[in-house]
């Protein structure tokens, strides 16, 4: 079969044999993209609207006098503390999860410690419905009088991030051949040295991807934050919800805070794209 014929068959299969099909496909993609993107664009736009503009009929899509005043006001009425608190909780939880998770993952991947059962037990904790685990934790923290502290929220996020980190990193470590580590150990590196100096740098991309995912999960987390905090610690998700529950709903300020809370994860998603499939399916599908 000639190359030309193969190309023809491929093009025909891909529906590129006639121009109408191509146009139809792109129209379909465009329509779905609009459905997917417009609701978000609406929120970004609302952040720039004045009070009269988001409560009018017919609704105004593009704000007439866009300025940053609602963003500043949004930060003032809780947004700033929300974003800082979310960052503290997410960053601390990510660091702890990676430190604990990476050595555990290494141990499981290299030495098959605990066999399959241990690995699956760890993963099963990740799958618990958060509402089911938060009730005992709430009572536990109440008993210890650490409700509404960073520690309690970081700890709770970490419980869910550790199994995730272990499972993801296990996959990355298993992809290493292990020969380099053996060589390092022959040269006098201990097991920890082999892990810390050889294996860890080799899985650096996986480590970064796992860290970013953990950060994203904790940043977006709402249920724990709602139940375990009151006034001292206020992650941004709780701040947004609180603003909506208020007497007068300040849509522009809410949208501004929500937009600002979304920017970090949108940036992360661009960096994560290569690992997205793997990260979202707990390594079950390797994209």
């Amino acid at each position, binding site marked *: 079969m000639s190359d030309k014929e193969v190309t023809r068959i491929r093009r025909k299969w891909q529906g590129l044999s006639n121009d109408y099909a191509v146009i139809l496909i792109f129209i379909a993609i465009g329509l779905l993209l609009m459905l997917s993107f417009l609701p978000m664009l*609406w929120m970004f736009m*609302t952040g720039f609207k004045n009070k009269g503009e988001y409560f009018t009929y017919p609704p105004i899509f593009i704000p007439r006098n866009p300025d940053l005043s609602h963003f500043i006001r949004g930060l003032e009425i809780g947004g700033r503390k929300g974003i800082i608190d979310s960052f503290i909780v997410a960053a601390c939880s990510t660091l702890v999860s990676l430190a604990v998770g990476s050595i555990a993952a*290494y141990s499981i991947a290299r030495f098959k*410690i605990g066999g399959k059962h241990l690995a699956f037990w760890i993963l099963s904790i990740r799958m618990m*419905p958060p509402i089911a685990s938060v009730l005992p934790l709430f009572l536990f923290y109440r008993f210890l009088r650490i409700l509404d502290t960073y520690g309690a929220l970081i700890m709770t996020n970490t419980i869910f991030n550790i199994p995730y980190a272990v499972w993801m990193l296990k996959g990355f470590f298993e992809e290493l051949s292990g020969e380099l580590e053996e060589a390092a150990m022959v040269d006098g590196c201990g097991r920890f040295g082999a892990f810390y100096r050889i294996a860890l740098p080799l899985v650096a991309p996986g480590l970064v991807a796992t860290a970013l995912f953990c950060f994203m999960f904790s940043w977006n987390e*709402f249920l724990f934050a709602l139940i375990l905090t009151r006034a001292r610690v206020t992650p941004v*998700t709780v701040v947004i919800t609180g603003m909506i529950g208020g007497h007068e709903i300040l849509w522009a300020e809410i949208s501004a805070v929500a937009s600002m809370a979304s920017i970090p994860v949108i940036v992360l998603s661009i960096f994560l794209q290569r690992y997205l499939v793997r990260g979202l399916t707990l390594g*079950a599908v390797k994209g």
Partner: protein
Amino acid sequence: MKKTITVKITKGFKIEKHMPLLFILPCVIILLSVSVFPFIYSLLLSFNSWEMGSGLPRRFVAFANYGRLFTDLRFWNSMLNMGKVLLFGVSSQFLIGFTLAMLLNRAFKARNLITTFFLLPLMIAPVVVGCNWKMIYHYSYGPLNYILRVLRLSEGVNWLGSMKVAMPAIIISDIWEWTPFMMIVLLAGLQTISVELYDAARVDGASRWQVFWYITLPVLKPIIIIVLLIRGMDVFKLFDIVVLLTQGGPAGASETVSYFNYLTGFKYFNMGYAAAIAYIQLIVIIIVANIFLRFLQERKPEYER
């Protein structure tokens, strides 16, 4: 002097030998103390009646909480709502996501950029999703009702305030949020199918439909099962957008199991009963998770089969 050196060496050797165990210890200790202990505690709690707000002491009631649960219409209503999300939400996400994956599974410029745009709803916080849709669903000023009025399809639907459409409204925003997940995973699956396989089928004279039915679907089957199981488990965690959009209302029409559990525990402070709900929820999840894990264990990469 000599003796101490030997001791040191043997001691060092021992630590080295048990290194793998030491590596995993922090993880196991943390998970045991902060997950297993509370779970045992809440199991015990579920056999007690403890109304924290009333000041009544805790008392042992054996299986009364579970018995009450099985006759609680509100609980069954929330389970029914979960079923609706599973039936209409997850299946729509799958169908739209699959279509989108098929559409995007071709080489063209800007494909990565377009994929990134599609993924945005998935990346932003569910709270932000809820906040977003709360504005869109607004009865008088929301853009959705405006479009319906302009197209003369309706005089305006009370999306979040009516018994009939509150749950569909939540399902629509759930579809919006999670379709990208289906899309990206199925797209990854589609890309593992080699072009040669399609070529061979085409040369043999297979129709497009036959190619889809006999090549694409069988190869994707494991991935399809995985995404459906993952989403199936997620349904029971549906909470954030319910809080933002309807708070379970009107009159419990859009109450999910997680939200019902939250109300029982943290609004009515009926701790024993909430623990019982949590346990039932846990059992359902464990069943689904077990299927998922078994699947994970047995699965081989697609191209090896």
